[in-house]
C-alpha cells in the first residue's frame, strides 16, 4: 500500500513535470530574497559592538552551515526511501544533492575560516563546530567518490545509500564527541555566531538570507537533478516531451 503510493508520486516523470512548474517561482523567490537579505545585512544592518564589520560574514556563513547539514539529512531520507522501497528517484536526488551539499559545506568552512582571521587572529582553530563541519565535508566527498567509482549504476545507487545512512547516524556522534573533546582541550573560544540574544536589526536579514539561500539551493537542486534524471532515463519515451 505505502509502497504503491510512494511509487506513484515518485516516478521521475511526475517529478520532472512538477519541478518544471515550480522552478520559476523558486528561482525568483530565492534570488530576490537572497539579494534582499545580503544587501540588508551588508549595508544596512548596524555594526557589531565587539567584532566590528567582520561579523557581516554571518549572513553567508550561518545559512551555509545550516544547509550543509540539512542537505545531508535530506539525502539520508532519500537513502532510506531508496533502500526500503527501491525508489529510483530517491537515488537520483542523492546523486544530485551531494555535490551541492559539498559546495555549501565548503562555503561554510571557507567563510568561517576567513571570519576567524580578524576575530581569532588565525584562519583555523580546532573548534568543535569547525571540526565537525570539516568531517561533514569529508563525508560528502566520500559519497561523491563512492558513486563515481562504480560502472554499474544500480550498485552505485545502493552502496551510496548505505553510506549516507551510516553517515547520518554518525553526525550526532561526531558532534557529541568533538564537543566533548574541545571542552577537555581548550578554554571556551569566542562563539562565532554571536551571543545569546541577537538584535532584530541583524536577525531579520539573517532569517531572510537563510530562506533565500534555501530556495536558491532548491532551484539548483531541481536543475542538477533534472540533468541527472535525463542522463539516467534517456531511453525512456516520456523524456521526448522535455527536450
Amino acid at each position, binding site marked *: 500500500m505505502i509502497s504503491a503510493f510512494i511509487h506513484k508520486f515518485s516516478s521521475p516523470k511526475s517529478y520532472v513535470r512538477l519541478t518544471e512548474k515550480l522552478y520559476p517561482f523558486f528561482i525568483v523567490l530565492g534570488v530576490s530574497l537572497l539579494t534582499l537579505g545580503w544587501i540588508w545585512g551588508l549595508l544596512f544592518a548596524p555594526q557589531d559592538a565587539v567584532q566590528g564589520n567582520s561579523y557581516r560574514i554571518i549572513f553567508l556563513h550561518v545559512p551555509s552551515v545550516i544547509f550543509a547539514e540539512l542537505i545531508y539529512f535530506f539525502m539520508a531520507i532519500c537513502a532510506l526511501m531508496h533502500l526500503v522501497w527501491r525508489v529510483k528517484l530517491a537515488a537520483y536526488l542523492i546523486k544530485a544533492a551531494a555535490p551541492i551539499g559539498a559546495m555549501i559545506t565548503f562555503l561554510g568552512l571557507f567563510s568561517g575560516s576567513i571570519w576567524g582571521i580578524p576575530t581569532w587572529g588565525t584562519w583555523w582553530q580546532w573548534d568543535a563546530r569547525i571540526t565537525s563541519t570539516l568531517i561533514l565535508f569529508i563525508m560528502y566527498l*566520500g559519497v561523491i567518490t563512492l558513486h563515481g567509482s562504480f560502472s554499474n549504476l544500480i550498485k552505485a545507487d545502493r*552502496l551510496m545509500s548505505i553510506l549516507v545512512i551510516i553517515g547520518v547516524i554518525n553526525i550526532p*556522534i561526531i558532534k557529541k564527541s568533538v564537543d566533548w573533546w574541545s571542552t577537555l582541550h581548550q578554554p571556551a573560544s569566542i562563539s562565532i555566531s554571536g551571543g545569546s540574544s541577537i538584535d532584530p536589526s541583524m536577525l531579520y536579514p539573517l532569517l531572510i538570507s537563510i530562506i533565500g539561500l534555501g530556495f536558491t539551493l532548491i532551484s539548483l537542486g531541481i536543475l542538477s537533478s533534472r540533468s541527472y534524471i535525463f542522463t539516467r532515463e534517456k531511453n525512456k519515451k516520456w523524456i521526448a516531451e522535455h527536450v
Partner: protein
Amino acid sequence: MVRLIKSEIFKLLKKLKSWLGPLLIMILVLIAFPLSIDISQFDLDKFYFSIIVVSILMTSFVATEGMFEEDFEDGSLEQEFLLEKDFYKLALAKIFVFVFLIGIPLALIGAIFSFANGVAFNSFAKVFLILSLSNLLLFNVFAFGNALSINKGAMLGVLSSLPLALPVIILLGSSIRTIQYGDGFISIIALMIGIGLLMSALMPLIISAALKTHID
C-alpha cells in the same frame, strides 16, 4: 561459525604479509618517532601517547585494507553466499579473527612502548585494555569501509570510513587522559565495551548488505 573462524585464522596466518606487516609498521613508527625529534627539548612522555594513537589508526587501516577484496576477486564470496545466503557470519568471523590476530598484538605493542616511555608500571594493563577495545571499534569501522570500497582503492576506503574512525580516536584520546590524570577510567571502559558490543553486532549486518550489493 566455527568453520568460518577456523578458516579465517588459517588463511590469515598463511598470509604473513597481511598479518605481520601492520605489526612491523607499528613498531617502526614507534621507534622512528623519538629518533626524529630533539629529545632534549621535548618532553616525550607528554605526547608519546598521541603517536601511539595515530599509529594505531594507521596500522589498523592498513591491516583491514584487503579484508574482503581477496574473497571478492577470487569468487569465494559467491560460494559463501550460496552456503549462507548472507555475509553476516563471514563479516563477524573476519572481524573477530582480525582483532585477535592483529588488533590485540597491536595493542600489546602500543602498551609496551608506552611503558618504555614513562608510563607507570601499574597502568600497563589499563593501556593495553584501552588500546585493545579501541582496536575492536576501529577494525569494525574499517571493515565497513573496506566492504564498501572493496576493489576501488584506498582513497574511497579512507573517505568513507575516516568520519567514523575520528570519534573512536577522540574516545581513545580521552580514555588515555583518564589514565594519566586518574579518575573516570571505569566509566570510560564501560562506555567502550558498550559501543564495542553494539558495533560488533550491527556492523556485520551493514557489511553484509554492502557485500551483497557488490556481488550483485
